[in-house]
C-alpha cells in the first residue's frame, strides 16, 4: 500500500531527509511537474510495460545495442553493447541516461550514467544527477529478474539495491501510448509551489503511525536495514 512517509530501506543521508521533509506530494499537480517522467533508476518501480528490441550490425549481425521502449511516459532507452565508452561527465543528462552493457554468461549487466535528477520514491526521497546505476538482468523461462544497484553520492550513504520480476506478456496490451498534456488539474495560482517548512510536514510520520513502528526506524536510512539494528528497534518499540 502506498503510504506517505514510507522511506523504509532507502539509505538516505541527512540531505535527503531534509529534502523529503520539505516535499509536498501535491507538487505533482503543478503544471510544470505533471508530465515529469520517472528516471531509469525509478521507472522499474512504477507501473510499467516495456519492449526490448535488438539493433544488429547488418554486415556482421553482431548486436550493437538493445533498445527498450517503456510505455509509461513513452521513453526510449538504448543499451550500447559495442564496447563504447561513456561520455564525459558534463554531457547533457537524460531521464534514461547513457547505458552500456555486457554479458556475463546468461546475465546481462548494464551500467548507466548521466541520469537526470528525480526521485527514488514519490514520497519525496530524492535522487541526484550524479546517480549511477548497475543492473543485472537474469532470465528464467518467461520471467526476467531485474536487480538494480543505485549509487548516489549526494543523497545516499551506500548503494541502494532493488529487485523486481517481469513476465513476458502472453497477449499484447494494445495501449502503449502515454499522452501527457498539461492541464489545470486542481485550480490553483500558477505561481504556487507546494512545500513544507522544516518540521511542518504533517504527513511525514503517516507510515510509521499506520504500521506502529518508530519513525526513527522508518527515516533512519541504511543502519535500519541491517540485523544489527534490531536491539535499537526493540528499545524504540518499548519506549
Amino acid at each position, binding site marked *: 500500500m502506498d503510504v506517505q512517509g514510507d522511506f523504509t530501506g532507502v539509505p538516505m543521508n541527512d540531505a535527503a531527509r531534509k529534502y523529503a521533509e520539505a516535499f509536498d506530494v501535491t507538487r*505533482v499537480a503543478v503544471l510544470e511537474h505533471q508530465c515529469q517522467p520517472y528516471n531509469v533508476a525509478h521507472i522499474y518501480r512504477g507501473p510499467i510495460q516495456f519492449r526490448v528490441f535488438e539493433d544488429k550490425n547488418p554486415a556482421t549481425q553482431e548486436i550493437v545495442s538493445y533498445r527498450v521502449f517503456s510505455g509509461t511516459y513513452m521513453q526510449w532507452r538504448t543499451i550500447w553493447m559495442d564496447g563504447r565508452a561513456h561520455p564525459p561527465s558534463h554531457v547533457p543528462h537524460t531521464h534514461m541516461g547513457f547505458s552500456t552493457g555486457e554479458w556475463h554468461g546468461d546475465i546481462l549487466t548494464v551500467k548507466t550514467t548521466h541520469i537526470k535528477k528525480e526521485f527514488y520514491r514519490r514520497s519525496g526521497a530524492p535522487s541526484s544527477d550524479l546517480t549511477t546505476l548497475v543492473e543485472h538482468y537474469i532470465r528464467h523461462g518467461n520471467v526476467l529478474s531485474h536487480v538494480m544497484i543505485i549509487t548516489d553520492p549526494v543523497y545516499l550513504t551506500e548503494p541502494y539495491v532493488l529487485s523486481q520480476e517481469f513476465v513476458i506478456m502472453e497477449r499484447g496490451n494494445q495501449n502503449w501510448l502515454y499522452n501527457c498534456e498539461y492541464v489545470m*488539474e486542481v485550480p490553483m495560482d500558477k505561481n504556487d509551489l507546494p512545500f513544507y517548512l522544516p518540521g511542518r510536514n504533517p504527513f511525514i510520520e503517516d507510515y510509521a503511525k499506520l504500521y506502529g513502528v518508530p519513525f526513527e526506524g522508518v527515516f533512519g536510512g541504511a543502519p535500519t536495514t541491517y540485523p544489527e539494528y534490531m536491539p535499537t528497534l526493540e528499545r524504540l518499540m518499548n519506549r
Partner: protein
Amino acid sequence: MRMRWPLIATAAALTALAGAAAAHHSFTATYFEDRTMEIEGKLLQFMFRNPHSFVHVEAPDENGQMHRWAVEWGGAGQLSGQGVTNQTLRVGDVVSVTGNPGRDPADHRIRMQYLRRPADGFEWGRNPGETFN
C-alpha cells in the same frame, strides 16, 4: 558457447510480475482514504489524459455553497482498457461522484471511487476491474 536470451531477440514485451508497482503519486498524502463523500452536479470539464484524468464538477458542499470540484481519476491508458474514452462524459452531464475527500478542504478535490450518470444509468467503479492507481 555463451548462451543468450532467444526470446529477447524479438520484440519481447514484458510487464511487471508482482503487483508491487507504486502509484504515480501517493494518494494517502493527498486524500483521506478512510473517508468518503458524495457530490452531484453538472460536469464542467473532462480531461482524459495521463498521468491522471480529471473530472471537474460544479456541485454544492455540505453547506450548500457551490464549488468547482476536481475529481481525480485514472490515467487515459488505464481507463481506456476499462472502456472509458474521451467521449464517455460530456460537458453538461449531470453526474454523481463518490470518492475520498482531499486532505486540504480548500482544494475541493476528490479521488474517484464511483461515478454515475442518472440520465442513462452509466456508472463506473462497481464492476470488476474498474479501479486505478
